[in-house]
């Protein structure tokens, strides 16, 4: 099973000082995101797997694959729960 994640089409984001603000037009809620969170959301303009997001983090930050994997998993879980992300099973 290959699960892919993508940015919800109702999201708008803007960067400021390497960080960002994310606005969900559907729920009219907004979120602050860290620099790495902003990187992940930008990558998620296209559907990505967890592993692809780990690669995004390890390419930019000085972190181990394990640390990046945990960070990406946390981000995806939070993003899924808050409605910022869509999930598709591309099996």
């Amino acid at each position: 099973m290959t699960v892919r994640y993508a940015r919800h089409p109702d999201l708008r984001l803007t960067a400021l000082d390497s960080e960002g603000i994310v606005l969900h037009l559907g729920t009219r809620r907004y979120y602050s995101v860290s620099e790495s969170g902003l990187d992940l959301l930008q990558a998620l303009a296209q559907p990505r797997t967890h592993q692809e997001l780990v690669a995004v983090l390890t390419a930019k930050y000085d972190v181990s694959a394990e640390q990046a994997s945990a960070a990406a998993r946390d981000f995806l879980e939070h993003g899924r729960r808050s409605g910022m992300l869509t999930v598709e099973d591309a099996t």
Partner: protein
Amino acid sequence: MTASPPVGVACRDAEVASWLADWLSGMRLEPPVPLALDVHIVENLPADDDPREPFLQPLVEIRSGAPLDDVRIRWRAGEARATIAPGARTALVELTRDALRDRDRLTQTFLTATLVFLLRRAGWHHVHAAVARDPRGRDWLFAGDAESGKSTTAALLATRGWAVGSDDLTFLAQNGNGVTALAQRSPIALRPGGYALLGLAGGAAARGGRKSAFFPEELGGSWAGQVTPQILALPRVEGSLTRLEPVRPREALAELVRWSAWVALEPALAQEHLDLLAALARQARCYRLFLGPDLFGGRDVLMELMP
């Protein structure tokens, strides 16, 4: 009456057309592209079958986004509605004669909301903010909600000789590499508490007599129709001493988004609006402004805090 208002009006009823032209001209807003209100007087309005969840503002409900993609604004105090098609620069406005009997509320709520959406099509995006230019020529923007002290502060600054623009209805626009704030020309409307704190007398009755209104010139200041904010202040009434505390631009941006709820309406224009708010937070020095009673002493406290 001004023959060519900055936002055009078409209406078969000459008296209504003249009244609306006067209202629009009085705001002194000059958007960079032609915009218009196409106004029709109707017997009554049919019920809406719009499936979209409304966004509620005082006396106004707004529907936007999918699946219809237009903007529909309905007045809740009478029979009036406006429709703006996607990408259109003209708002179709339908009013009953009954709605026209309450023109103050009609303009302050329904027609102002319609204008806000129309101006978005000219790249002007709304923010709840007062704007002012201090005696040293620095431009300030005070962003916050209805209880944050914007109007009282704006009126006080006018008494100190500052140039003051709007006390609430402000538009942001990209101007070269910077963000410009454009103020609607309207009197500063004070609640009885602010009126008393400033020791003012007179003023025009506003908001059904619940507020007293003054143009900045009547308070000793001047009008600033357009500023380029260098200082972004997020006011709140708190504490005994007025103070400014720096905040990070990202925090300021979050506050701006919070006080610009309309940013989330109309998906096609939301990104532009959000980017303007971010550019403002990047451009200005950002502060929380805690307003204390010392503000109303004899000194210009804000000038002392920001020498």
